[in-house]
């Protein structure tokens, strides 16, 4: 006889009444016996008491770690192949700007406790140096007496579109971090916050709020930079009671050492 149907095998696995011919076939057929065994296993595992799941979502920061690690690997790959193709001047067309940014809005916001080891990667510098000669927005507005300490393009995390730039300048009374974006970022119902994330991937400080479409200048200290707070990050924040990073990063870039 030909192999029994899935329905017949399921009945056999569940000890329901089956045609004796089916039973006889399965007894002599390795494929069908295995199939019945798998069905029994599925029934048994479904029946396991105590398997009721209280689903526990990982911390929001884990997604940031995933994207950071993927980006990091892509970047290494890119530098190995010597493709400068990714380093392009952003299009001036007002296309779907912030819509391309990968977000995790639907998660409940929780504290961003630990940040990625992947974020630490020293290789982040690769490509950034090349980028800075290519993309230099609106340098005309910069007063001549200000000494530029470091500069980095800010790119989306997913598509690597260069959509802004951060510059560290030595001002009269300390250091300033200047942030400009190529076009207004979409803050949705919330607001934009600028952060300095430590290269250890674990600590971060908020340096201020950025108005969409405007550039921002934020006083920072040399001590912060010296301690490794060198990753500039613009996040989208909600008006909630949570002061920590939302995990929703729009642009990011690491200042060269």
């Amino acid at each position, binding site marked *: 006889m030909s192999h029994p149907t899935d329905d017949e095998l399921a009945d056999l696995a569940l000890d329901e009444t089956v045609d004796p011919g089916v039973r006889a076939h399965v007894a002599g057929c390795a494929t069908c016996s295995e199939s019945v065994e798998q069905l029994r296993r599925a029934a048994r595992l479904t029946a396991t008491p105590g398997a009721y799941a209280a*689903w526990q979502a990982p911390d929001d920061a884990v997604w940031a770690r995933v994207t950071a690690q993927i980006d990091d690997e892509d970047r290494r790959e890119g530098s190995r192949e010597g493709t400068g193709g990714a380093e392009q001047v952003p299009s001036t067309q007002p296309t779907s700007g912030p819509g391309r940014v990968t977000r995790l809005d639907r998660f409940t916001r929780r504290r961003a406790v630990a940040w990625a080891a992947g974020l630490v990667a020293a290789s982040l510098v690769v490509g950034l140096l090349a980028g800075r000669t290519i993309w230099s927005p609106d340098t005309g507005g910069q007063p001549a007496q200000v000494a530029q300490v470091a500069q980095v393009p800010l790119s989306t995390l997913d598509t690597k579109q260069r959509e802004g730039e951060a510059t560290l300048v030595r001002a009269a009374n300390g250091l300033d971090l200047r942030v400009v974006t190529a076009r207004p970022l979409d803050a949705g119902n919330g607001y934009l916050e600028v952060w300095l994330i430590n290269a250890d991937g674990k600590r971060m400080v908020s340096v201020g709020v950025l108005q969409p479409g405007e550039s921002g200048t934020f006083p920072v200290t040399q001590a912060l930079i010296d301690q490794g707070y060198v990753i500039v990050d613009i996040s989208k924040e909600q008006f909630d009671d949570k002061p920590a990073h939302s995990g929703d990063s729009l642009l990011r870039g690491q200042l060269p050492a």
Partner: protein
Amino acid sequence: MSGSWLGGLVHVHDDPDVEPAELAARLSGGDREALAEMYRRWSPLVHTIALRSLGTREDAEDVVQQVFVAAWRGRATLRPDRGSPVAWLVGITKHRIADVRTHRYRSHRNLQALASEAVTEPSAADESEWAERLLLVHELERMGDPRATVLRMAFLEDRTQDEIARALDMPLGTVKSHVRRGLTELRDRLKEVERVASN
């Protein structure tokens, strides 16, 4: 079961708008947004499996990170024709959990983690099947009613198909067909996990 599992309760929902198979096709085509969508849907499942298997949040979150990075890297191995990519992710999860265990037992560096694992994992038999059991719980939740209810009554409450038909006021043939198809679907998920985990 420890009461701490009740902390941070979240529900796993599937968005009916995007079919899982379509998601699989998009991911294998290199769509990064598909990865984000998969993370939204299934990171609680992956995380809960890892947490129960390994016992520490730090290790569990590392596993989640590795699973989704591996999913991106290995997107070419995804088989959209096998239906939902959820079983594929769970297969990868099993791999990563096994890696963490091997590493733990080899290095014995993290004595604290071993201690907490001993508390949450009393039996060796349990630990190998958390992935499958939680996947099946997840799939039952996703299945929706009346099939999910029929399967719960059949497998968890161990009621006969006659009893189920009477209790739900449903023709016996309908109950039979839900049980058969439901069980076959759950079996297919397990086969997919096995395929990926044994690679």
